[in-house]
């Protein structure tokens, strides 16, 4: 994934997210995550990313 491709995908994702609306945002992002996970080579890679996203989500929050 080049920087340009990442940029393009980001903008497309943001616009699609805006189109589905705030009330559908969680379900939209969940579906997209699953599609991307299913296309990743192996689980080990995915598990690291899940753990990382979890840590960053909880930064500064009460345990």
């Amino acid at each position: 994934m080049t920087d340009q491709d990442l940029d393009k995908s980001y903008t497309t994702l943001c616009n699609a997210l805006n189109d589905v609306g705030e009330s559908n945002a969680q379900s939209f992002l969940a579906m997209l995550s699953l599609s991307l996970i299913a296309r990743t080579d192996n689980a080990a890679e995915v598990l690291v990313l899940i753990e990382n996203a979890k840590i960053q989500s909880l930064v500064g929050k009460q345990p």
Partner: protein
Amino acid sequence: METAPVLIAGGGPVGLTLAALLASFGVRSLVIENDPSYCTGSRAICMSRRSQEILGWVGADKPLVEKGLSWVGGRSYYRDTEVLHFQMPSDPTQRFAPMVNIQQYFAEQYAHEAALPYGDLVDVRWNCTVKTVREVKNGNEVDVTVSDGSADGQTQTIRADWLVACDGGRSTVREQLGLQLQGMQYDGKYVIVDIRQKTKRDVERLAWFDPPSNPGSTILMHRQPEDVWRIDYQIRDDEDPVEAIKPENVLRRVQSHLSMIGENEPWEPLWISIYNAKCLSLEKYCHKRVLFAGDAAHLVPIFGVRGLNSGLDDAGNLAWKLARVIQGASPDSLLDTYSTERVHAAHENMAYGAKSTEFMAPPNFAFKLMRTATLKLALADEKVRSLINPRQSTPIHYVNSALNVADKDVWSSDLTAPGMPMPEVLLDDGTHLTQQFGHNFICIVFGEALEESKRVNLEQNGIKIYSIAGNEYAGYSHFLLLKSSESAMILVRPDGYIMGRWKGTDIAPLLAAMKLTEAIL
């Protein structure tokens, strides 16, 4: 009635630079400017490498670089943690830094001073305002009011063969022609503040997202000469813009941020204004004998510093073409390529500017949510950091320009493709290739030297020759990728853009390319 071959409406940085460039081609122009002198406040501050190169065509680069603060990169912070440290392409073989920060009034002054040695070829009149524009045969009549300090200004009419509107975002010329900018605006509003404060900090672009000093806001900081900071920060959607720029509200936020980053020297505000991002352009920049350049032609978001920089590129593109048309070397239709190339550039600049704006001032919940996700992830995942990069101004590739000559040979690098700006080369004598640009068509010959008869032929057809060989080879190998035994020629326009490239030493296709500029359809 007073007459002028070229009347430039607007003596800002674009108008004054255009006047100096036209004079360098021997074309006389009259510049009329509403204000009594150079601009106040500081407005544009970041001058790109390309802008420095263009100003260099008339020698205005030297004072600019001496006075300005050059920089190569920047840092972005999420809350109080650094999430991106970016560097723009820069190496010791480059002539200029990727960016130099300077107050716009200095840029105007240096462009104007560069025009002075041309004597009568440039006449700048301050306190002079365009009132009406009337099309006449092969030109325009322009009524202008000259204010001399008394209550009623005197009106006079100037007949101009060509009128160039460099009169800014609220262009009177544009209004007189009944033309409208088209595009869109963003709602997100930024307060722009210049303050004077001593600092020892490096010259870098600094950005904070959701900083503890101003929770929820985005703050940008740039250093300028003479101990000036430019500070931009976003205000909340529900804030009243009039309230937001009241000094007491601005100063509190600025103080809070300066304290947070440890800038504790005494400071004073110099300039406060408010801004919202716009992506607007005219459909074309050529309307019979009226041409548009700079903000009069297009308004792009400030994020990525493409405003003044694209305006100077307009001037650089227009000057040699208008000079050729006025001097009878090319038909009027050469100016259509000014319009198509620079409209294309405006659209590219707006696309990049829109992306930067969507990150700096998210237009809706989706961009806000994704930005927060990016910033949080960037703390620990370098893969997403490039999304935070501000996409600073770079020269635009003129894809599909009528002046491009399609490649016939096979090339393994696109860096010298037709329509690209010629890459920099550090020459053996310590000078740079771009120092040759700005005045003539140049055939850059790589490898084997051209025979005398071919050299004479090219020169008779208005093409200067510049040969590169020997040790300099290493400097350009990455963008030519020639085999060591190969020769090549690149035809570069006066504005430093590539028209075409050929392997070998057959000059026939170069001469054919020059015919293009004489018979553009």
